[in-house]
């Protein structure tokens, strides 16, 4: 096979977005996908494009990446089902309402449009929410996509720009500019970009843990829910806890279907749906929106997020994470936890900026893999 500039391992939404970015910049790109493009976490995710403010770095990346999404909006084919439905962070009580105001100030400072809703405005915006809620925060520019189609869009654009897809055989070895596939194919490239999601088998030392999630999809009920609805407690519970947690999170899809989530479990490698946590997740959803109980549920599934200790992704040269002998050819774009759909196009830009020595719009420092080099021993 001809010489490549970059071999990307993994055609999830992140690998595909990078393939597009790098190919459009003129690099010769090969994409290796063991199974089928978009079949990993990308197929399991909700596709909520959301600005999150867990940390300043996360706020910067999600905000930036969301702006890349809206840049792309005009080009996205119908299959991507981009919908600028906005997010409403739902506050159950006065304590959470204080959070709403706090969040609103953070948004204002960052230039993210947001408006506070009182109880009446909230129930007008979402009549199926239960009564007695304190209010919410509407972030109107958040949106929703159908992730596998978005990944496919990125991939097709990359292929049109000259990228090559090698599908059906996984990479079993990747080091010093050489990638070997299970079927024996060898690829050489100046750089290898690991975009394998939560799969760390090629580089077991990565500071990534699998975090399982469940989702349920319903039949079609157009207009039942108008915005992506997330309970405000989610910010604190879902992202900071070590133990199993659930939160109310409902998404309207263009088809009229609803996605109901969400759950988070560490150290659970069983890909089957689990009754107990599903029951808790749905109980939580029904507590916010009792009418969901009568809707027809079609399918339950699970997916694995790739979680890092500081909840920020790894974007850049693998550096010291590659082990005792540094491997300058290895690059990483992984560890996106529950935000890989939102962050894929933004992360792809940051990565291309580094590979091409361009200046980035936001500071890439917080995402450099080397930040974990000192602690590497802990995860090895």
């Amino acid at each position: 096979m001809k010489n490549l500039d970059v071999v990307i391992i993994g055609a999830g939404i992140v690998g595909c977005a990078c393939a597009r970015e790098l190919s459009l910049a003129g690099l010769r790109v090969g994409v290796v996908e063991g199974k089928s493009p978009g079949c990993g976490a990308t197929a399991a995710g909700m596709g909520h494009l959301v600005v999150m403010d867990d940390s300043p770095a996360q706020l910067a990346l999600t905000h930036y990446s969301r702006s890349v999404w809206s840049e792309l909006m005009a080009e996205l084919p119908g299959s991507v089902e981009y919908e600028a439905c906005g997010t409403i962070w739902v506050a159950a009580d006065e304590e959470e309402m204080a959070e709403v105001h706090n969040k609103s100030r953070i948004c204002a400072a960052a230039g993210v449009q947001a408006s506070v809703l009182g109880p009446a405005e909230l129930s007008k915006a979402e009549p199926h929410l239960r009564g007695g809620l304190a209010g919410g925060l509407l972030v109107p520019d958040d949106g929703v996509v159908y992730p596998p189609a978005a990944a496919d869009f990125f991939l097709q654009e990359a292929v049109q720009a000259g990228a090559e897809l090698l599908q059906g055989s996984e990479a079993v070895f990747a080091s010093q500019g050489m990638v070997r596939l299970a079927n024996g194919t060898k690829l050489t490239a100046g750089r290898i970009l690991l975009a394998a999601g939560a799969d760390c088998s090629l580089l077991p030392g990565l500071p990534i843990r699998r975090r399982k999630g469940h989702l349920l999809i319903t039949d079609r009920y157009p207009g039942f829910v108008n915005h992506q609805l997330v309970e405000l407690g989610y910010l604190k519970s879902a992202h900071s806890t070590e133990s199993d947690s659930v939160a109310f999170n409902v998404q309207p899809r263009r088809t009229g279907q609803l996605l109901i989530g969400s759950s988070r479990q560490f150290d659970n490698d069983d890909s089957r749906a689990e009754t107990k946590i599903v029951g808790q997740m749905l109980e939580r959803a029904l507590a916010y929106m009792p009418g969901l109980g009568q809707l027809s549920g079609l399918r339950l599934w699970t997916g694995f997020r790739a979680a890092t200790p500081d909840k920020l992704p790894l974007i850049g040269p693998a550096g010291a994470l590659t082990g005792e002998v540094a491997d300058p050819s290895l690059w990483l774009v992984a560890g996106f936890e529950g935000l890989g759909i939102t962050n894929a196009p933004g992360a792809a830009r940051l990565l291309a900026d580094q590979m091409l020595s361009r200046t980035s719009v936001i500071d890439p420092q917080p995402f450099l893999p080397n930040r974990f080099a000192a602690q590497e021993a802990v995860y090895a």
Partner: protein
Amino acid sequence: MSHYEVIVVGAGPAGIAAATAAARSGSRVLLLDENPAPGGQIWRVGRSMLKGQSEGEAAKNHALKRLRDSGASFLFGYSVYDAPAAGELRAICESGEAADCPVWGEPHAVSLRYEKLILATGARERFLPFPGWTLPGVFGPGGLQALVKGGFDVKGKRIVVAGSGPLLLAVAAHLRGYGAEVVCVAEQAPLAQMLPFAISLWSHPAKILQGIQYRAALGSAPFHLGCWPVAALADIAGGKLTGVQLTDGRRTWTEDCDLVACGYHLVPNTELASLLGCAIEHGLVKVDEEQRTSVAHVYCAGEPTGIGGLDAALVQGEIAGLASAGKPTRSLQGRRVAERKFARRLEAAFRIRPELRSLAQPDTLVCRCEDVTYAALEKRSGWTDAKLQTRCGMGPCQGRICSAALETLFGWKQISVRPPLMPVPVSALVYSESQPVNLKENQ
């Protein structure tokens, strides 16, 4: 939660035989079916119009009486939709209209515990897409038969029965008994493929007799072998079926009709077995000579282990019932082996001809739930890819209907079975046993 030594899922002939045998052996048995009464497909309640079927009628009544006398408990009108843990099933009556529902009209879900489980979930019809197959007025033969038994009037209607399998003749005879005019029966399998099967029937005289009775009941309607539909035709407005185009590969002609009943033999219902983790081989649930699956304490009988018809279902069901109760099954093994041979010949006789794979046109729908056309699927590399990019098989039927077609058309095998097995109200997935844990860490 109710607890049973043996739960039998599916009250067709296999399930009835299993529940009867297990209960008569002293086990505490629950027989469960989504239909309001036992009988399954062939013994579905309804009038039988065939004089020649009185013998079949007698067999059914005898089996039902033995079942009632056996001491087994029943739960009818409930569908099993999940197997959340080892030894546990969830079932629901969505209409809320079953005898066991506490509030009339409200969906009712229950948890059931078992020590031994017998799956007797039967089969469904296989549909292959051809232009017009989604028109109103085009049914599956078994589906139409069930509708008629339920009161749908076919008197004086001109009906073409087409597709494949022994069901065609049975249904045609049945429709005629209800006053329909059967225009013709078109079986896709050619004579040469059917002959070895017909000859093998000499070892199953009862089956020959039944075939002859069905054929006789067809009257003068022609029975074409090696003949299949290429398109169902509608009037200009596109709403009303006017006829169906048939071909024998050399000649294509149109038969005017009011209804078409078209289905290509049967597809085993293996979803519950898959969900439980039972090994599936060539699309069939793998069982040993006592109907044990690869999962401990789970048995399977009837069509999911191989499309073999009534007699196979009865003997396998009885074996499973006895084995689940630890009783010997030796005396039944000869019949089991003979029926297995029959099932294999059946499969060979009604093998799908390759021409049927190219009937769909680019705009022909393959997945009716999500409106996915043949053209959209043709580009995909496999089931996963097709699902992700076209949503084929992701609608309310979860691929029940289109998966068999996709396997025939493209060779794609259905991959994952996820709960719920059929659409259920979201509230039915909130199991009452769940305890709230750590809902919000900040509290």
